[in-house]
């Protein structure tokens, strides 16, 4: 689904000391499954995820998505891709504080109809929110609940790819594993990319990509993660 060729990302381009977040990496990701990207802080894992999700432009190299060159997409095409085919779970939940949990999920919905609202409620229920919490303002929910709402928001359109940047960072272990189970289930017929530095949550990944200092230090099937 995704293919990267000689992908580089340089920060502080104008200064003498260029900072490479990605150093000419090549990779190919599967069409489906749970892909874990792990590495220490500053290894370039989040930058890679943001380049794949069209939020960042790589400085050099090309990214192909379903055979099309992502880096050549116009801004409008990138927006449409994010809106229609991608789902996002950010490190912080980024919920709209004055909206209810359901409305926060519906913000990303492609259609505003009853069926979508029911779907949003179903996702929230599956993610462990109680019915009485569905219409609570997100500012009244706990950090863990907010992150689960953010995951439901990412899933509402059944996107082809979900990008999750440290999705369990604000969750306790129990909730973290619950979230990973849900992402794993979703990854049965879709692609889910999880960026984390917490190896313990990646026990179920199908592909593990390890990053170190802007380069891929290893990449392999599930057995390598174990």
């Amino acid at each position, binding site marked *: 689904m995704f293919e990267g060729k000689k992908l580089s990302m340089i920060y502080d381009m104008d200064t003498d000391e260029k900072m490479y977040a990605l150093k000419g990496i090549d990779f190919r990701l599967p069409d489906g499954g749970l892909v874990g990207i792990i590495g220490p802080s500053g290894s370039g894992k*989040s930058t890679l995820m*943001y380049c794949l999700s069209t*939020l*960042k432009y790589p400085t050099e190299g090309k990214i192909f998505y379903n055979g099309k060159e992502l880096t050549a997409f116009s801004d*409008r095409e990138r*927006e*449409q*891709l*994010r*809106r*229609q085919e*991608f789902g*996002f779970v*950010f*490190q*912080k939940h*980024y919920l*709209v504080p*004055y*909206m209810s949990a359901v*409305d926060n999920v*519906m*913000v*990303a*919905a*492609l*259609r*505003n*109809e009853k069926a979508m609202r029911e779907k949003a409620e179903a996702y929230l229920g599956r993610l462990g929110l109680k019915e009485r919490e569905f219409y609570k*303002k997100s500012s009244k929910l706990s950090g863990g609940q907010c992150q689960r709402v953010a995951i439901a*928001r990412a899933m509402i359109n059944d996107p082809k790819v979900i990008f999750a940047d440290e999705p369990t960072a604000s969750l306790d272990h129990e909730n973290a594993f619950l979230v990973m189970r849900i992402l794993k289930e979703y990854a049965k017929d879709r692609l889910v990319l999880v960026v984390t530095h917490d190896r313990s949550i990646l026990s179920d990944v199908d592909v593990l990509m390890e990053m170190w200092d802007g380069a891929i230090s290893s990449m392999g099937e599930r057995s390598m993660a174990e």
Partner: protein
Amino acid sequence: MSQTLSAVKFIRNNKRQVFVVISALSLAFMAMYVIQFILMVTEESFRPVMLEQPKKITFAYLSGESLGLTWNDDMTEESYQEQYQKKMDDLMEELRAQDGIKECYYTQLLGVSYVPVIGNWWYTFPMLEAEQIPDYLKYMDAKLVEGRLPERDGEVLLDQKVMMNHDYRIGDYFLEGSYGKIFTIVGTLQSDSMVCAGTPNGYTNVGWALTVLHEESRADFREVMRSLGKTVAEEDTIDDAVRNKKNYESDVAETIESAISVILVVVVIFLAIAVFVTYISFMRNRVGEWCLYISIGYSRKEIYGLIMREVLILFGTSMAVGCILSAVMMVILAKILIVPKGLSFGFWYPAHFLRLCASYVFLIGMLQIPICIIINKIQTIDQVED
């Protein structure tokens, strides 16, 4: 139904903030409309006296020169007065023979002030013989609504608005402060042009003048005199429709229009600053939200659309609430301040209303600056996290 960002969600879920904004905008709308209403009371109140009455009556303070009388050293004051009176009688005869001239009197006049919210107007009415008054009232379409007609010298009939304006009652003495107990108010009149009348008793605060009752087509006295082959001296005061219309336009309408414009501009400037500052703070609090929208695939255009829908709902609601508040405030002011003072008023001024709407559209236009700046600065979440 494809999903668009809902403006109603913000409004429904931020009632306190929205209430503050709508209150401020609607109160400002009300203040501006009510100030216009109060100022327009002056214009409305002066209209009957300055525009309606002169269509039927003219007071001409004619010099001897205008009557073809020149002073010479052989004349005494008495002989001059005699000749002046004779010339005046001749002129009145000529005028009565003219089409559109109903009656002429050479009479003493009394002046009465009429005080609206700002300014005051001093207008005159004739002192006629008691037997002339019924015809005069009939011609002026004035109705006696209380009291009786004058029977003796020194009795006056006042329009009911003038009575209210001065808080007079029947039996009170007219202008007692100036003349003492000389003119007694014996009746109240009702008319569209605020007609007053009285019988003389030798005192006047205005002087003598030729009083001409005429049709509207003969309301330009200098023109009437020209049609008789006479010229009115430039320095003579002719209190006719031409002069009153000119005074009304320059002294009343233009002054009030300028005052309204100045007030509107000042209020709009302050309001623009307040709205500007409030909106910048409003928007700053929501940058994270818009950041999310951009990141999950909404375009800047869609976010601009969301903000504009919110702005239009807030401004539209404020204007509607402002109209209701204005109506309530005007009714209260009319009841407690305007009607008891015998003043005229109107509630609906389309030109002013449109001007107010235009100033709110201007405010929305002003808001485009911070909105566009902020929209262009919205970052995606990856940039925020960097």
